[in-house]
């Protein structure tokens, strides 16, 4: 471990609990690299997480950290940000956490545009409970709750967030770790609600059941299936079949940030108080 880890991680909690080859560690590394680049004071960062493997990240990060309930991280984060706006708030969720049990909170956070950054670890499976299919598991995959293959169509998290009104949406992967750092930096700098979906891998509870021989093979899959958004635009649709775009997918500065807008409410309330 290097200086960066010593600066931003709770070293007495290392090694982390994630399985051999798990993408979560890679994402955590990319995240602290982003924080270092952003130059935030550690006391001024709040990291909020939900429940599941991804939720454990807050135990390792040396900030103001809170590991909340399943699916509700964004609700807790909303209370934190609204009452101490100077804190830089990052919210970590898994795919089940963010779009199954927490789906309602996610779309409303997108709609409100409060200045926070959500990092969604999408490994297409419920890992901690032992490999049940999630809303992002692709069709015809094997899971402990789909022994005959999954039948449910899957959610595209990034598109869902764009549709719900998030003003910065990007997708990275754990393989493209440098890109991921860039995207987190840009998301954090964006004044409004930003979402970084991270396509990652669960070698134990997804990979082993779905013909991936190793964590490396799963990273290779990300490398081969992630297509830079700019490049994808120029590609024929059929060439994108089974692939996904990575990079910055959407950005808008037209919608005001929530607290800025709330300032109008405060102003109106204060004016009414004047005799």
């Amino acid at each position, binding site marked *: *471990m290097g200086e960066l880890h010593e600066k931003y991680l709770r070293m007495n909690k290392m090694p982390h609990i994630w399985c051999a080859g798990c993408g979560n560690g890679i994402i955590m590394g990319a995240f602290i690299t982003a924080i270092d680049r952003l130059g935030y004071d550690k006391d001024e960062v709040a990291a909020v997480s939900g429940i599941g493997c991804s939720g454990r990240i807050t135990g390792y990060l040396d900030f103001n950290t809170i590991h909340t309930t399943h699916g509700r991280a964004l609700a807790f984060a909303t209370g934190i940000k609204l009452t101490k706006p100077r804190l830089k708030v990052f919210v970590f969720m898994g795919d089940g956490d963010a779009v199954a049990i927490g789906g309602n909170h996610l779309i409303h956070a997108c709609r409100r545009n409060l200045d926070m950054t959500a990092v969604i670890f999408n490994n297409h499976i419920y890992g901690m409970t032992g490999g049940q299919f999630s809303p992002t598991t692709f069709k015809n995959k094997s899971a402990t709750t789909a022994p005959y293959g999954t039948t449910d169509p899957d959610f595209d998290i990034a598109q869902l967030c764009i549709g719900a009104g998030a003003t910065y949406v990007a997708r990275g992967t754990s393989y493209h770790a440098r890109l991921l750092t860039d995207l987190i930096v840009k998301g954090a700098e964006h004044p409004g609600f930003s979402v970084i979906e991270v396509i990652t891998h669960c070698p134990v509870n997804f990979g082993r059941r779905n013909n991936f021989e190793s964590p490396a093979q799963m990273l290779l899959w990300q490398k081969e299936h992630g297509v830079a958004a700019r490049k994808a635009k120029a590609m024929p649709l059929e060439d994108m079949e089974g692939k996904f775009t990575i990079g910055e997918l959407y950005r808008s500065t037209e919608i005001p940030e929530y607290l800025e807008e709330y300032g109008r409410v405060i102003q109106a309330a204060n004016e009414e108080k004047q005799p």
Partner: protein
Amino acid sequence: MGKKRFNVTVDRTICKACGICVAFCPMSVFTTDHDDKAVVSAPERCTGCRQCELLCPDFCITVVQVEETADG
């Protein structure tokens, strides 16, 4: 100017033997030992791309550029 040299180390105590560094090092710097943990077998080949550092989920790899002395 000579070729840049790098010191690559693996913290064996925290390596979980996932094999990612071995698979992704473009210069085949790593091999594995009897526990499948990463071993730096050919450090002289390292070009400092840091792919191993970035992709190691357990932060057990460090790549440090070796300071060149004045007389090379």
